[in-house]
């Protein structure tokens, strides 16, 4: 399955990037295509393309602050959690994403 998402924490220095790394690793390990955009102090990196978003089965937003460009995901299935959840239990979060996608099919 195809997963895209955004990570954004309060200060934008640490949790954002740790969440990105953990989610991407967990997603790949489970056999999915996954790409996480980061919105931090340095600005937006690994920006999702409209095509990536369009093709995604599910969107994971790991954010403690309002993310910019949320409207890009309108009409998509979205899981929203705090960055802490992505850092603490990345595998469970991916499993949850799998369940949500399965249910809606």
């Amino acid at each position: 399955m195809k997963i895209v998402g955004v990570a954004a924490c309060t200060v934008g220095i640490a949790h954002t990037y740790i969440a990105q790394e953990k989610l991407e690793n967990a997603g790949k390990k489970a056999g999915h295509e996954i790409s996480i955009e980061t919105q931090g102090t340095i600005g937006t990196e690994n920006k999702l393309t409209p095509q990536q978003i369009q093709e995604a089965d599910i969107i994971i937003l790991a954010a403690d602050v309002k993310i910019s460009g949320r409207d890009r995901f309108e009409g998509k299935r979205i899981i929203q959690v705090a960055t802490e959840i992505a850092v603490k239990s990345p595998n469970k979060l991916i499993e949850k994403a799998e369940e949500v996608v399965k249910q809606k099919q």
Partner: protein
Amino acid sequence: MEISGILNEHTIKTNMNAKSKDEALIELANLLLENEYITDIERFMKDIYAREEIGQTGIGNYIAIPHGKSDFVKKLGVAIGINKSEIPWETMDGNGVKGIILFAVGNDNEGAQNHLKLLSLFARKLGNDEVIEKLLQSEKTEDVKEAFAN
């Protein structure tokens, strides 16, 4: 860009003997002061504790990442401490902490984009279990650098 550019052997301490979060933070902040990353330890610590108030910086796996933006940061960098014993800390997995990475980032990052980029790559590494395992086993400064090398 090399992540090692963010590391400074003078702000890395292995075999640290801190008994508490306060002790560990002060020891690491002192390294930042001595090496001219920060200008005022008390006020820098106040900004670090302000971030501690918002939520846990113990990310599990015995690692803590205290950080915050502070006007008293002159130069962006990190101090790393590997403590001999586990210190009580607010963590996501309920365990204590042995590896502490104290981030020093200023409020005004004009012209610091390269360093910020390095710092973000460095932070990513902390989300990697293999890196953390190596880091926690570090006996010497070199081992710490090695943990982040790949």
